[in-house]
């Protein structure tokens, strides 16, 4: 194990960095799209469920088929990888965001509007902060699944830790596969930890009280 690391660590670090870039770009794009979709469709429940349904269909397309379909449009490489991973993450994010926002007690929403909040104020001051726990758990799921799925983009020359896995598969060596797996897990845990810290900073005060 350590021999392999000593011989290959510069490439392995580069793989990690590529992997991280792909995953974070995909998650960032998915997050931005989710926020825009929800803000635009908040009061049009039909559009919202229509879009969720659409993304669930995309989610069921096998990734290789997706790559093949996108090749003529965006070619081989990172761009195609990020697009596909964004679309997969989109479904997870939308679903959990919508569930979180709809899970806020309707009586609180009514009270907010009865006190004279506009629907935008009700969203930002009441629905959004109370949905944060669900939003963050959606982000965690999307993060973990995208990290794992991103290993496959090595097949379309997008780089990342998948290269170690495929190197091991092709050369029938266990060590690169183990390294690929371990490093993916390290990245996932690291990012999940950071996300957890952000969540804590946003909701810690009132949630600690709720648990007590």
């Amino acid at each position, binding site marked *: 194990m350590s021999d392999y690391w000593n011989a290959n660590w510069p490439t392995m670090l580069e793989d990690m960095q590529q992997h991280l870039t792909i995953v974070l770009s995909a998650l960032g794009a998915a997050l931005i799209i989710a926020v825009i979709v929800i803000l635009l469709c908040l009061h049009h429940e039909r559009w919202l469920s229509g879009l969720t349904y659409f993304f669930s269909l995309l989610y069921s397309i096998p990734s290789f088929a997706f790559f093949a379909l996108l090749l003529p449009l965006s070619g081989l490489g990172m761009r195609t990888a990020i697009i596909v991973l964004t679309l997969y993450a989109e479904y997870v994010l939308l679903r959990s965001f919508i569930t979180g926002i709809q899970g806020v007690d309707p009586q*609180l929403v009514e009270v907010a509007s009865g006190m*004279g909040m506009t629907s935008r104020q009700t969203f930002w001051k*009441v629905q959004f902060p*109370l949905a944060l726990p669900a939003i963050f758990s959606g982000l965690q799921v999307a993060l973990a699944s995208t990290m794992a799925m991103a290993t496959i983009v090595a097949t379309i020359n997008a780089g990342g830790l998948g290269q170690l896995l495929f190197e091991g598969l092709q050369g029938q060596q266990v060590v690169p596969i183990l390294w690929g797996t371990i490093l993916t897990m390290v990245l996932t845990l690291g990012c999940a930890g950071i996300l957890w810290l952000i969540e804590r900073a946003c909701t810690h005060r009132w949630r600690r009280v*709720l648990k007590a």
Partner: protein
Amino acid sequence: MTEATIQFKHVQKRFGDNLVLPDLSFQIKRGEFVTILGTSGSGKTTTLKMINGLWQPSAGEILIDGKNINQLDLVKLRRHMGYVVQQIGLFPHMTIAQNIAVVPKLLQWDQARINARVEELLKLVQLDPNEYANRYPTQLSGGQQQRVGVARALATNPSYVLFDEPFGALDALTREELQGEIKQIHESLTDKTFMFVTHDINEALFLGQRVMVMHQGRIEQFASPAEIVRHPATPFVKKLLGTVRQNQELWREQDE
């Protein structure tokens, strides 16, 4: 000033096929404390929610200060109309002080004025500001939470305050204490119109200067508590009063 400040003219409300209020007309005068008494499904909460425009009438007119509610800016109207609901009306992610400050913030008061007002209101509802201002709602008892609810409704010194069964989930002792306080608050603040929905006949008769008894979407009687007790207008009102009598008889038997 005794002109009508809230007026319903032949108001009808239906939800789908369900006709909740067939034809409702009444007037409330400025500064009155009116309780709306009714069983569940009587349309009392529906009536209250039409006063702050949460629900629109299917037919008829609602006038606030002589103006049709359809011509009023509802957001503006609600910011000057306190609203207290049962149980979980407080926002769990905001401290007590932040909860009370919601409407003042919407109206963009400066922070010093907000702080002073929060302190004043907490004292009015008999909660020590130093102790409670920075707590979260779940750290308070049910009675204390409801006190905060009342303080929040009074934050911008509104001319109207609407109460939707605020004390429904409290134990009898806390309830009685809060009833006394709310009555005293109404007496100490001049020209405030209170509308208070309840299913508790004792509460309705104790608090209301006038009591509106509702049953199946219609007003059975709208009169002073004394008048209702002395001259119940319909069999339904008589039956309601009977429930109180029943208890009194039980007590009398014990005394003898």
